[in-house]
């Protein structure tokens, strides 16, 4: 646990430090890479929810761990002014950055509690949908529809 925490803190520091010196376009690319990873990890888990993929606890846990980890890094990857260029981020983010960051915080804490609660397929079906509801809530108000 301690080692994980240390590793996490280190990543966090590196990411924070890195963003500070990085150009705007790199910030955009970086957050899109993390969010794309969200999408790629969530897709097979969605199949499990629908019953078209076999339940795979490890894959569910990997997704939840990544949500918890990246959701803490993401707020810093949306610095003011990074709404121009090749991005789907809406200016609304910076009109209510607190609410936007709060949604990432909610995703992280929901993912952490679901990680503990999910032990089998039944607890997965009961707990997972609530976690990913926040993805859609945020996209509805803060992400451009391309």
């Amino acid at each position, binding site marked *: 646990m301690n080692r994980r925490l240390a590793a996490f803190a280190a990543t966090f520091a590196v990411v924070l430090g890195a963003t500070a010196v990085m150009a705007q376009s790199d910030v955009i690319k970086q957050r899109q890479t993390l969010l794309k990873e969200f999408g790629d990890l*969530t*897709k097979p888990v*969605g199949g499990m*929810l*629908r019953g078209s993929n076999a339940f795979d606890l490890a894959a569910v846990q990997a997704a939840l761990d990544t949500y918890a980890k990246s959701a803490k890094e993401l707020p810093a990857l949306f610095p003011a002014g990074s709404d121009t260029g090749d991005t789907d981020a809406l200016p609304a983010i910076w009109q209510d950055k607190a609410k936007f960051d709060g949604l990432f915080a909610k995703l992280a804490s929901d993912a952490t509690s679901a990680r503990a609660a999910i032990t089998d397929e039944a607890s997965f079906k009961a707990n997972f949908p609530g976690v*990913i509801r926040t*993805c*859609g809530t945020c*996209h509805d108000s803060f992400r451009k529809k*391309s």
Partner: protein
Amino acid sequence: MRADTPAAASVLAWDLPTRLAKWLLAALVGLAFASKYYGDPAMVWHQWNGLAILVLVVFRLLWGVVGGSTARFAAFVRGPSALLGYVGGLLKGRPAHYLGHNPLGALVILGLLGLVAAQGLTGLFTTDDIIVYGPMTPVASDATMARASALHQQIYPFLLALIGLHVVANLAYSLFGRDNLVRAMITGRKPAAAYVDRAPATPGSVIAALTCLALAVAIVFGGIALAGGNPFP
């Protein structure tokens, strides 16, 4: 059938398959919105509902070729001069009396069918980037999915607006016009009278309707499967 009882004074306007397809389509379009907002998070219901809508639209296109006389596109889609003539009459408060669609209504019908088809087709390629992946997304590029997902969200306001116009126009004709179009679309019959188009309508055959339905199912589900998609959400 009740061809001879009180029907002596009424004539067939819409055959049964046309009416069933129309009201089923209206119900499914309503359910599409309900399933979006109240359905399951993976939108499995919404996707089945959308596939059913596509089947009905394909059915209606086929029925527009081999169906009852008032359902045929060749009979109800008219040229610009008929359209202008009709609009002129309407503006003077004396619209020409049609048994089937009038030339202006025909445009709305084509628009409705076109928009419903566009909404359904884009839905095949739509994803929310979270857990909803439409039937054709396994073989679509990221760019195609992004484009289709955006269109799926941009088309429906126009569809809603056209449905609104369609409902208001039909209610207005029914309340202030010469015959009750809404009732005719339910019972299939209109009062015997002098119509611009041929009356009574000739109904399409039940065998033809069932064949069109089977073909429509095969086209929609077979088409998705042949294109490499997964037709069963």
